[in-house]
């Protein structure tokens, strides 16, 4: 129970924190960070709740509705989840590649959902710089986060 409280308290705020880092000149995308964690490292029985916590954070910083954010984060996770066995462990090159891929896909997915459901959002704008910084900085950042709560409490030991 405590781990869930911590997740819903802290995970949404990571979107605001990465915004502060962006102000310092490193445009990290918390959406990509959460997608990577959920797809490759999170306990798959807890994915629904974890996804909701991440989507709530995205709803704080983006004008689209909560359901759009669930889809924008959840669809890449659902696609990448079957690849978890290959990516398990710290294979940096694959994590960096996947982070760059997700950073490319997320704006397009946000744009598609915006057009389909008339919920346009500012995050639908593609930024190549974000792709580069996501590939370079997010895998080591995630490695650090995975050893501290609330991320540590939801890490899966071994892929099924």
């Amino acid at each position, binding site marked *: 129970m405590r781990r869930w409280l911590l997740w819903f308290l802290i995970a949404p705020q990571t979107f605001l924190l990465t915004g502060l880092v962006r102000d310092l000149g490193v445009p990290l995308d918390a959406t990509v960070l959460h997608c990577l964690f959920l797809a490759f490292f999170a306990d798959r029985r807890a994915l629904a709740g974890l996804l909701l916590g991440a989507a709530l954070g995205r709803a704080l910083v983006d004008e689209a509705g909560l359901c*759009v954010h669930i*889809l924008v984060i959840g669809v890449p996770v659902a696609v990448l989840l079957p690849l978890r066995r290959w990516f398990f462990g710290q294979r940096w090159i694959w994590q960096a590649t996947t982070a760059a891929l997700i950073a490319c896909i997320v704006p397009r997915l946000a744009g598609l959902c915006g057009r389909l459901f008339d919920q346009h959002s500012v995050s639908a704008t593609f930024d190549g710089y974000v792709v580069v910084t996501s590939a370079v900085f997010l895998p080591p950042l995630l490695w650090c986060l995975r050893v501290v709560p609330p991320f540590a409490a939801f890490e899966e030991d071994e892929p099924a």
Partner: protein
Amino acid sequence: MLRQTRAAFPAGLYGMLLIAVFGLTLPALVLPVERVLVGTAALVPRFLGFWSGKPAAAAEPAVLDRLAALRADLDAAVRYHDVFGAESLMPAGWRPEVRVAVATGRRGGGGQPSVVQLDRTYAEVADCSEFVTKGNALLGFLMRPGIGLAADDEPDDFARVLLLNDRTAPRVAAAMTFPEGGTLRMIVGPAARVDAAALRAELWDDPYRASRLRADGDAVHTVKLPGVVGEPPGGLLIGRTRIWGYRAAEGKESLAIAVLVAPPIDPHALSHVVLWRTDANANAVDTAEHVVEHAATVWDLPGVRGRHLLACDAAVPDGAAVVQDGLFLGSARGLSYGLALVSSFPMSRQRWSLLLMPDEAGERPRELVGRVLEGREGFALIECEADRFVSRAAGMPNGYLFTGSNGAHCPAGLLLGRVTAVPGRTDRLEVSLPVHRGPRAAAVMMRPERRSGR
């Protein structure tokens, strides 16, 4: 093995995705839950806001007076130009009343909205004619409660206007006059949803001549049919022709398949319409609840430029306008606990109905529908489509930008900022907006709840 497979199948994830799709299809069911969940997540920045200082006071009286004067100028200009052109065509004794369009609904011809909700009830406009105009153009017909699409509406519901592009709207007799002489008569009705314009011309009096139309842009006006009761007055503009067909190969004639008619204004851009009171001695009944301002405090969300957290003494409805020092900040997404999230205008990507008041005195205000293409603090580049009452060749003027009608809680006439036309582009405008930082006092506009027609 079976247990391992079960654990490997992320049923929760797929369930959550299904719920999200369901929520987007039926938003009314999910919205209350979303307000509570996002509201709870927003409590953390809300508590941090307690330590961010005291809200800044309002603007100086001189600035507020200047804003009030600009709003009054816009109001006067809208009232003048919206009536101008139709007065001489309407029966003697009819009196125009400019009314606010609050919302649009239903998809009609050209995929555009075909019903407009007004800020007055059926009872309040009961003695108005059914013809609804704007400038010299006929927009549609005022619905009556209990009849047609308004069969379930009560006299106390907000009145609605059926635009010409609705599939249930009456067809209108019309004519186009050619500069080289002669007229072509037709019946104008709604186009299909997939058509390139909202209206379609049919039943020509000279089909051969109609099939040889090649150029767009001919004006189509209503024709008064002698002896027919309930027809609109003659001479009102319906729109301009748009020829739909196959483009000509070299040395051959192009083939026209249909003649569509584009009304002079996109319904999304409509902020005001004109009703015509048939009894010149009757006074307008004004019992509608006006928009009420609620005091609020706005904080900048840390790390998100142009995104604000708002706390108010009342529950904030979605789409409520947030005004700061008399200037429009953005529209709110309501949350629980009296909180709301606000995206400032430059950081929003929603479609906006806007009003542009040109600097040139006496020039017609432009009604626009637009979307921010690029935004940063104090600046927005918008892509917009203006009404066609003024020729596009005239270009977009410099002036002041105001909100148009963006829902029940976001009234027209809230000042956004100064607008500069982009040279060579009639669909781009640059908007300069004031920049504010830190916690500050604001106001949220809310219209009291009242049943609206379906």
